[in-house]
């Protein structure tokens, strides 16, 4: 069986992950820039009333150079917050870090159970058979001048012996084998970005020059 961990590592779409992270950062940057531009518009539309902003201090001096009077020169007309000197802050993603972690647990559990038993028995049987037979007889015979009287007897004995021997052997064998495969994979992905203020893009904010009227 091939190593499944390698297969999982191969299946993780690193390139896709980086591509999507880059697109997400680009989208975020666009949204940030758009928000800054809209803030600039809001600043340009928000007007400070006339005579509310001190533009200059006018000192009146006599022939000796002594200050005899001090006046403040304020705005005659409404001025915007942008003209007042409040500018939108532009931000940028200075650093993006993709942190991908995964844990793979892979195991094969093998079980083998084997049992065997053996039974041996020796059976032996012997037998013996014996038979006896007795017998007898007599007789008279006449044979040309000879006279003969005689008799006879007999005995017969038969014996038989036997023996059976049986070897009984019973062998039993049982085997059980199993394999369990387990695969457990956990992955987590973290995207860390650092946001820093940056100078406004060229011409994004108009340069405001304030000067008193002559």
């Amino acid at each position: 069986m091939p190593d499944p961990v390698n297969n999982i590592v191969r299946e993780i779409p690193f390139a896709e992950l980086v591509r999507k992270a880059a697109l997400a950062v680009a989208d975020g940057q666009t949204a940030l820039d758009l928000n800054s531009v809209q803030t600039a518009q809001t600043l340009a539309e928000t007007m400070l009333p006339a005579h509310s902003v001190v533009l200059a201090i006018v000192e009146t001096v006599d022939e000796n150079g002594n200050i005899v009077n001090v006046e403040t020169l304020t705005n005659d007309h409404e001025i915007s917050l942008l003209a007042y000197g409040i500018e939108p802050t532009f931000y940028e993603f200075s650093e993006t870090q993709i942190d991908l972690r995964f844990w793979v647990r892979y195991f094969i559990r093998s079980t083998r159970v084997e049992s065997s038993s053996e039974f041996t028995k020796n059976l032996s049987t012997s037998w013996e058979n014996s038979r006896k037979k007795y017998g007898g007889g007599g007789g008279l015979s006449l044979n040309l001048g000879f006279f003969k009287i005689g008799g006879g007897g007999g005995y017969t004995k038969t014996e038989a012996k036997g023996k059976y021997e049986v070897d009984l052997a019973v062998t039993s064998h049982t085997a059980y084998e199993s394999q369990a495969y387990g695969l457990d994979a956990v992955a987590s992905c973290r995207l860390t970005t650092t946001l820093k203020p940056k100078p406004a893009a060229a011409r994004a904010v108009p340069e405001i020059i304030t000067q008193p009227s002559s």
Partner: protein
Amino acid sequence: MPETFLMKLKDDSSEKDLQRVMAFLQRRKAKIVMAVSKSFIVLTDQQLAEVAKTIPAVERVGGVTVKRRKVKVLRRPAKGQ
């Protein structure tokens, strides 16, 4: 770290909305630097600014930079000289 933000309320927001937002900012220790009509410049942190964006009466929240202003001093001779 505190930053300066512009907060603008919606045009149809009421005076009560303004008071609610002001109270919310003050409770969170935000400093209101300047207020013009329904817009104000607030010194607070990014986290509170993100929360403020979710307030229905708030139309826009954006980071701003307050440029250092120089007030010119003009000298002119007294009349008759």
